[in-house]
């Protein structure tokens, strides 16, 4: 058999994690470089996947398949479609930036940590571990395999959030520590509950199908060997969707995100919202629609409403935030609303848009959040009110921050615009009213971004800010490539759409939906 490329892509970071964790306490810097090296290696492999992938070839490519636990009907089945490829690329791309951005975040505080305590090694090892698990869950074409990593992913994330909080906090270290572990526990419990409810559904699925392999299930469906009563299908769908909606996160299951992103360090926050949460929305496309097409259609109205609420509600709360990172978190909630809207619009524009949205949102949020992190690390505060006039002392920082913000409000010319407009068009084509309401989101987005920029960057220079340094070389190496990507994908997204479109066509076929015809053609 051929070289298991997909496995390698997931195993490499895992191996890196183990090695990094093994680095002795004193050799902190070595650990960092090791981690960076492995993340870059993964990026290379991801690139190879991207090249080897034939957009118009079979639905799942580079597949690997072995039975794993016969009794549970579990297979070790990997395979990628366009959507998976895009998201793997995103993940592999972002992790190096996350690592570089977090270069100094986990250096131990000599004051209270003893010799055996090795936070730095742990930090980077955990990041790589998350990368490995995320990648494999993008590759899994076996429900159970996916579920396992969907759940296991929580553990390293949990330690990243709870163990390595943002050192810029208001109040005492004790208070911060408690807040942090509260956030971590909240994150874990929300997702665990979601996961457990999904577990029930997974078991239910097995009792119906007797297998977990997507391909086998598809076969069953094709030759009518799959009798799933409407109610059963709906229940199972709800079980799956609940877990994904928690992860995504969809209103009203979103409240863990602001805490988590607020307390975690900026790079980890990026990891959460740009990478890990994408697994949720990805899974909606990959599993909800493919396994339960009828139920998906049945649930669409409700989901659309929730997504709309997320969009407006998230944006409004973002406007109301005092804490920069929480603001970004609520902005993300709003954006996830768009993604879910696009997925369940069930038009090719909507779904391609949603997929692009996942990628673009990852990049734009990374840009905004990381710059925000640099800003916060300088001033040592997350409160918007503590800033003012930054652009006078640190113009480059302010500029990059503004670009990140403009990307967040999806300005044409930057990547997010393409995806957001596609989603809106896709939704509008199927549900005009919903589309129109969603469009109002673009004003609110402008509102929270510009208010944030105005309060932090413009106006007279605050005393505490006056001494602020502009971005350092390391920080620029993080921000500049992201911005280049944002512009590049904004002006020339074709390569991405070419990869994604065929996959979306397949999904559309799964739910056997056609795009609504333009009125003029319909008339003829």
């Amino acid at each position, binding site marked *: 058999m051929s070289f298991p490329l997909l496995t390698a892509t997931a195993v490499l970071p895992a191996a890196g994690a183990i090695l990094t964790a093994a680095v002795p306490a004193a050799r902190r810097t070595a650990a960092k470089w090791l981690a960076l090296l492995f993340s870059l290696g993964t990026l290379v492999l991801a690139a190879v996947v991207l090249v080897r992938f034939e957009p118009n070839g079979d639905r799942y490519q580079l597949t690997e398949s072995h039975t794993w*636990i016969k009794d549970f009907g579990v297979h070790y089945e990997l395979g990628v479609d366009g959507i998976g490829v895009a998201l793997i690329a995103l993940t592999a791309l972002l992790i190096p930036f996350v690592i570089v951005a977090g270069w100094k975040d986990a250096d131990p505080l000599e004051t209270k*940590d003893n010799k*055996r305590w090795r936070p730095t090694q742990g930090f980077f090892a955990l990041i790589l571990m998350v990368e490995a698990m995320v990648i494999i869950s993008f590759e899994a074409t076996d429900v159970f395999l996916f579920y396992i990593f969907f*759940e296991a992913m929580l553990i390293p994330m949990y330690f990243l959030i709870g163990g390595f909080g943002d050192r810029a906090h208001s109040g005492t270290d004790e208070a911060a520590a408690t807040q942090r*572990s509260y956030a971590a526990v909240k994150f*874990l*419990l929300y997702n665990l*509950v979601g996961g457990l409810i999904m*577990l029930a559904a997974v078991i239910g699925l097995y*009792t119906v199908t007797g297998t977990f392999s997507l391909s086998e299930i598809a076969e069953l469906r094709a030759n009518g060997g799959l009798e799933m009563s409407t109610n059963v299908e709906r229940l199972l769908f709800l079980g799956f969707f609940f877990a994904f909606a928690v992860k995504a996160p969809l209103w009203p299951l979103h409240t863990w995100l602001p805490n988590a992103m607020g307390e975690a360090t900026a790079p980890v926050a990026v990891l959460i919202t740009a990478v890990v949460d994408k697994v949720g929305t990805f899974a909606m496309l990959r599993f909800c629609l493919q396994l339960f097409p009828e139920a998906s259609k049945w649930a669409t109205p409700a989901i659309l409403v929730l997504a709309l609420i997320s969009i407006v509600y998230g944006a409004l709360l973002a406007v109301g935030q005092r804490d920069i990172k929480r603001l970004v978190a609520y902005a993300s909630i709003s954006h996830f609303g768009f993604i879910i809207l696009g997925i369940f619009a069930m038009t090719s524009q909507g779904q391609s848009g949603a997929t692009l949205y996942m990628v673009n949102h990852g990049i734009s949020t990374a840009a905004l959040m990381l710059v925000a992190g640099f800003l916060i690390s300088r001033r040592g505060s997350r409160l918007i009110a503590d800033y003012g006039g930054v652009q006078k002392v640190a113009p480059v920082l302010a500029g990059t921050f503004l670009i990140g913000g403009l990307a967040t409000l999806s300005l044409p010319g930057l990547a997010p615009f393409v995806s957001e407009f596609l989603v809106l068009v896709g939704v509008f084509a199927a549900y005009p009213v919903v589309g129109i309401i969603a469009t109002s989101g673009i004003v609110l987005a402008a509102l929270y971004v510009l208010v944030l920029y105005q309060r932090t960057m413009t106006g007279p220079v605050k005393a505490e800010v006056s001494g602020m340094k502009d971005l350092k070389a390391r920080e620029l190496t993080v921000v500049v490539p992201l911005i280049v990507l944002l512009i590049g994908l904004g002006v020339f997204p074709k390569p991405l759409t070419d990869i994604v479109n065929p996959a979306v066509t397949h999904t559309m076929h799964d739910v056997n939906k056609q795009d609504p015809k333009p009125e003029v053609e319909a008339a003829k």
Partner: protein
Amino acid sequence: MSTVSVHSLWTTLAADTPPGGGLKFQAPTIEYAQLSPILIIVGAAVLAVLVEAFVPRKGRYYAQLFLSVVAIAAAFAAIVGLAASGFGTTKAHIAAMGAIAVDGPALFLQGTILLASLVAVFTFAERKLDPEAHGNRVDSFAADAAAVPGSDAEKAAVKAGFTTTEVFPLALFAIAGLLAFPAANDLLTLFIALEVFSLPLYLLCAVARRKRLMSQEAAVKYFLLGAFSSAFLLFGIALIYGYAGSVSYAKIADVVDGTTQQISPALAGTMGNDALLLIGMALILMGLLFKVGAVPFHMWTPDVYQGAPTPVTGFMAAATKVAAFGALLRLLYVVLPGLTWDWRPVMWGVAIVTMLGGAIVAITQTDIKRLLAYSSIAHGGFILAGVIAATPDGISSVLFYLLAYSFVTIGAFAVVTLVRDAGGEATHLSKWAGLGRRSPLVAAVFAVFLLAFAGIPLTSGFAGKFAVFKAAAEGGAGVLVVVGVLSSAVAAFFYIRVIVLMFFSEPKADGPTVAVPSVLTTTAIGVGVAVTLVLGVAPQYFLDLANQAGIFVR
């Protein structure tokens, strides 16, 4: 089968009085080879008593340790041998004239019990954790259990370097009982086996070195309640016997199904009276559920787990559960399949309250041992869900779960023995704050066990949970699955609480120290971790084993 051998072992003599009158004595046929595991352990136990009597005190500890390890290993080898020669599957049958079943479940569970016991014995023998007393290395057992705590006698005993090496023979006897329990194929054997493993455990609970008052209290509670429950069990046996006119599982089953051949008028009379049967069944179930620690018969568990010497707790928590569930399975699947529609609803109730009760009460616990006790209750509930499935899948899933669970438990309790302060083991949760910073490794290992308890994927806990829930769902107990899922969500909360405590809270100045164990405990913990991960990542082999072992002989 000849009419003789269907009679139970105990009544050969009286049974056949040929028409001509005059007694014809017939010696019972005992398949010693097939009973060898039990016999080896019993023999070793007896031998151990002699060792206590004759070997000089200095050598005893080593002699006992050696003896028990060898015996357990030998017994395990015997099991493997039997399984290899097909007694688990094709040649499965009932030995000792109907007293002991030699079949898949029996062998699988006995194997599990022996492995668990072996690991447990290692923790029994650990002598490096407690600081040396007067230059003598000491284990977790009282120098002189008979002496009053704090009395001069005790001091003298400590000074003289006495140790309670009797724990080894006691453990061996208990193991013997545990081995017989799931294999028992008539109610009397069931009862005897129960007592044989219970009595030594009562004693083992009483002989802790530290916190002796609690230890004795635990023993008293365990003893009284245990005796109480076994009385119920016995009465149940009596009623069933009254109903069926026999104590052998096979014959009872026949009578229950109404497929029995020769019906004496007396039998005809009692057979009509289902009250006997049902009440008897309820009482026997109660006796077993007590050992399993199912709500509402669980209340001894927290106290006893907390008071008993931690190695003993680990041993009890693991081995007793395995044996008791084995017996429960056999009873329900061999004797009472005809009554499925009677016991199922009841067991549903028990399973639900056990899952929820255990999980919910655990939330507010402050002592790590009590916490684990409640978690073991909750797990009992999960296993019950598998038991209720009443399908072959159910059996094998339960077997697998027990295997997975027992090692996690022993490992976890072994870790508990390591965390100590001046007063011995520091079991209060507040003491565990910041452990992750003091000794990351120990904390990490314990975290692994906790995650396994919580049923996080890639740990044995998840595989087991999935197996039983799957069986339950297929057995039409979807509701149980949902309840199970919900209670695992609740349970997750307190496991995570401990992890938070260990890793995210600042270490206290007067925090406990982590003792460096000898190779013994290290092995115990190591095995625990290894099994946890192996069963989590590559469970197929063991699932196959459980599947092959999943059929009861009748």
